[in-house]
């Protein structure tokens, strides 16, 4: 399920050192009447080709804002995005103009949104909405775009695509709609696919099928996938690596299995304790106390210290840096080793 060594030729080639998307120290500032807020304070991520990175966090952790920043979709009049570096292969996204973004969006970085009920235009046929990608970016003729769109519908396993092409979104179920949204995103073979809670709005059985589709797609293509989710089970199913966000900051990062088995941040540990799994099925679930901080009142020091079971005095004073705590493992906790040791028992 994760970091397996069943790798295609493409994967071996890209696995080391050449990320398709590399973002260091991303910050998003939101101007409000009461002064600036920071939905994202310090987020870094690196996705390789043929790899799935899950960004895990509660609502308000900044994960969705991060994804919009990566698409250049945050309105420029209210948000300002800055980063130490923000690169899509050779392209410097940090200095990209709106015109550059327009050519990147959809064709090099594509996005799947959360709610398939609302993410398709109700007055156009599903086929036309896929075909639009080829018309927009490739200048394809109507006929060519239609053929290409039909092919995409097949690829996302929509049965009898030719008959469904002229259907309208409201004639489709949620799962089928999400397949169309995925087909739109994959149409131009993007280098990076960002999926923001792609299964959250779906029934559980449909969720599983959509996740299967994601895995299948990730296996067949050479793109890097960023999966934004609040659901550990979803991350565990599809991700190679997990990044955990809390209050706009990256607090832990590592290979999926290691992060889940031996978390290096008390927040991650808290998330794990709060959901049922094989190791705690006979014990009571432990919720994380309190609730995520309001953007305008983020606690000093480590933002998690007010809810943290092992917080000490220094946690309220200094912001712990994200540091390497083991091979491939990063954590932003002063007591990462202690957390890992406890988790091992």
């Amino acid at each position, binding site marked *: 399920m994760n970091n397996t060594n069943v790798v295609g030729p493409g994967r071996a080639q890209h696995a080391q050192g050449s990320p398709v998307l590399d973002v260091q120290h991303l910050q998003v500032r939101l101007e409000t009447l009461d002064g600036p807020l920071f939905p994202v304070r310090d987020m870094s991520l690196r996705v390789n080709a043929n790899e799935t990175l899950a960004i895990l966090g509660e609502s308000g952790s900044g994960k969705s804002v991060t994804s919009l920043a990566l*698409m250049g*979709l945050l309105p420029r009049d209210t948000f300002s995005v800055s980063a130490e570096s923000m690169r899509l292969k050779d392209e410097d996204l940090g200095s990209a103009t709106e015109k550059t*973004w*327009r*050519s*990147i*969006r*959809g*064709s090099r970085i*594509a*996005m799947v*949104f959360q*709610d398939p*009920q*609302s*993410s*398709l*235009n*109700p*007055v156009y046929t599903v086929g036309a909405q896929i075909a*639009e*990608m080829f018309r*927009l*970016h490739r200048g394809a003729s109507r006929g060519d775009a239609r053929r290409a769109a039909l092919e995409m519908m097949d690829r996302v396993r929509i049965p009898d695509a030719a008959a469904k092409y002229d259907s*309208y979104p*409201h*004639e489709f179920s949620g799962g089928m709609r999400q397949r169309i*949204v995925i087909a*739109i*995103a994959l149409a131009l073979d993007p280098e990076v696919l960002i999926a923001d809670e792609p299964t959250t709005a779906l029934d559980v059985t449909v969720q599983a099928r959509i996740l299967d589709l994601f895995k299948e797609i990730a296996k067949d293509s050479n793109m890097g996938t960023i999966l934004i989710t609040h659901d550990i089970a979803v991350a565990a199913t599809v991700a190679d690596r997990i990044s955990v966000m809390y209050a706009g900051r990256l607090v832990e990062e590592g290979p999926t299995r290691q992060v889940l088995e031996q978390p290096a941040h008390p927040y991650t540990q808290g998330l794990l304790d709060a959901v049922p799994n094989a190791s705690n099925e006979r014990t009571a679930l432990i919720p994380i106390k309190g609730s995520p901080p309001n953007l305008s009142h983020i606690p000093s020091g480590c933002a998690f210290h007010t809810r943290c079971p092992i917080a000490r005095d220094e946690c309220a004073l200094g912001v712990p840096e994200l540091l390497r705590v083991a091979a491939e493992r990063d954590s932003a906790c002063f007591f990462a080793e202690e957390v890992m040791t406890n988790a091992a028992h």
Partner: protein
Amino acid sequence: MIRIIVRRVAASVLVALGVLTIIFIVVRIVPGDPASLILGAGATHQQIEQLRTSLGLNQPLIVQYGEFMINALQFKFGTSYRLGGDAMGQVLQALPATLLLAATAMALVLLASTVAGVAAARRPGTLRDRAISGGAMLLQSLPQFWVGIVLIIVVSGTLHLLPSGGYGSPLNLILPAITMAVSFLGMLTKMVRNSSLEQAGEGFVQTARAKGMSEQRLFYVHILRNGLIPVVTLAGLVLGVFLGSAVVIETVFAWPGVGRLLIQSILNRDYPVVEAAVFVFALIYIGLNLLVDLLYGLIDPRVRVAVTA
């Protein structure tokens, strides 16, 4: 689809019958005896009674109602007391003038409100938007008869640019059409603007933006079509309201349409013409609503299914 159309048409016929009944009742309730009006102040009691008999006005109400309905369904409303000749014929003769006026005003409203509404919605919150929204609000609050009179005073009286009334040349059409359009111009402009801006917050707009298209394409291809859906419904109703406002505007501008005919007939207790005119207006209104219902499915695929189901 055919079943739906049949069902809607059947419902419309029922409405038409209801309208006829109301026309009958209202016209009988209104004070004033047509026989004495026709004959004038010098008529003897006997003459009046004679005329009442020949007009059928001394029959029991229920008999009058039965005859009225049977005749009305054949578009027979009797002879105009005032003008002589068939009442329905009088109305149909005046109808083209009213339709021309209403259609011109409608074209004006649709065109101008779409242009202005789009201009405002493309740059919300800017000076341009505020000017358009404020202007729309102002237009919406002006009473029609007042606009008509002011236009006549300023444009015809002071500036001598256009005729103040009459019929025959396109120049005669301009002022009454503008007067008719004014308040709905404001209303529909705001509608186009607000409904487009509402759509701009929908999820599919984010998807479309993520596809990598220009803001222009995003607006005209994805947002506007959704934004215009409620406008179409309203436009159908507005056309109906235009017929009502024709009564005032045609009177102000001496426009020889059904509205003016109706007012003159009411003032003269010319029942047959009043009945015929109201019935024609009602039929047009019912027809428009039917048309809007059916047209709605063309722009909004969701309605097609909802209606079929």
